[in-house]
């Protein structure tokens, strides 16, 4: 039978996480599922969790008056949703809306922060992986901002 530890190990984010540290994370983890159009969190709510998406699709979006919901990015299986739990004062900056039925492992942010303080090796291993995610999101955002498909040639 699948247990949380093996499910965590299968996720791309933690696939190379040290085996001996994984049980520490399991203590903060729970299985969650969401239906289409359900909001996992809203902007300005307290950021209590981080989600390792196992299946489905989630839109990270923001409501813009006059334009409605503007989608910033979509996340799927293998992706990580949310890092506001890491940064004080721990509030979400965007909405997360389910586009396709989604299964994920939710990790409790307060629990993770506490364990990172207690076990710096685990904290380092975790933050190293989050930094990689943040770095690739930043690169993608920069590319997105460049609007590379805008008209250029003049013939």
């Amino acid at each position, binding site marked *: 039978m699948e247990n949380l530890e093996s499910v965590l190990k299968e996720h791309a984010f933690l696939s190379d996480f040290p085996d001996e540290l994984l049980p520490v994370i399991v203590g903060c983890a729970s299985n969650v599922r969401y239906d289409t159009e359900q909001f996992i969190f809203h902007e300005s709510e307290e950021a209590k969790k981080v989600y390792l998406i196992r299946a489905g699709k989630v*839109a990270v979006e923001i409501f813009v008056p006059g334009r409605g919901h503007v989608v910033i990015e*979509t996340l799927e299986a293998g992706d990580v949703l949310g890092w506001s739990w890491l940064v004080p004062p721990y509030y979400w900056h965007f909405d997360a809306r389910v*586009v396709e039925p989604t299964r994920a492992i939710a990790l409790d942010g307060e629990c993770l922060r506490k364990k990172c303080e207690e076990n710096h090796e685990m904290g380092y291993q975790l933050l190293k992986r989050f930094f990689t995610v943040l770095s690739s999101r930043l690169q*993608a955002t920069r590319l*997105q901002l460049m609007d590379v498909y805008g*008209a250029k040639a003049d013939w």
Partner: protein
Amino acid sequence: MIAEVPNVTLPRLFQISRAVKETHDTFTFELKPLDGGEFTFKPGQFNMVYQFGVGEIPVSISGDPLKKTSIIHTIRAVGGVTKAMRKLKKGDVLGIRGPYGTDWPVLRASGHDVAIVAGGIGLAPLRPVIYHVLANREKYGKVILLYGSRTPLDILFMKEIEKWRARLDTEVAVTVDRASGAWRGNVGVVTTLISKAHFDPAKTMAMVCGPEIMMRFTVQEFITRGVLKDKIYMSMERNMKCAVGFCGHCQWGSNFICKDGPVFRYDTIHDLLMQREM
């Protein structure tokens, strides 16, 4: 005896047999030769398309290389000539010179996984590759198409993409840079799809076409995944005029894009790509 030399600057006349509006700024012409002959090309090659009295532009061929009785060109209206061309209708006549340039490595890709990454109008020059690969499906491993567009309304060849996606032997993912909440697909740059695509980096041939910045980021993602530099190809775009390497308008270092390109192997142009103002 004097050998007859083909006049490379002489256009052949083609009539528009079908004109299709693809998006708000992009259209497709199917063209048939007025002389009734055939037209052959290799995926990745381009033609010089001449609207009489207006101007001549380089345009990639976006049709099926197996269909020899007509040519398909997909054109984005961004300047004087292309905006004038957009007004043409079925029955109008254009001059065509070509095909010119290098082609995608569809033969070298045999036995490999094929990863095709297109951005915006860059899907047009890669569509002949898709036709070729699907027509010879047994010769290739996994076939992956990753396509990025500005918005959902800018997606090219949507019906065909849906057909390709419905096949069990292809992996197709589409993403847009920006969308409203009504869009059910992916949002994010096309490079983010590469890490999730299912191909074996050690035996993958990658073909990339789109804006140059998008191609540079895409190549980096392929290299991160472990694809070899000599198995990554990209199609370059410069201001091509004569198309036969005489005029020098499209000179890029020691290359003429029209003659030595537009399709280049990444490891042969890496240094040039990093040169500014080239």
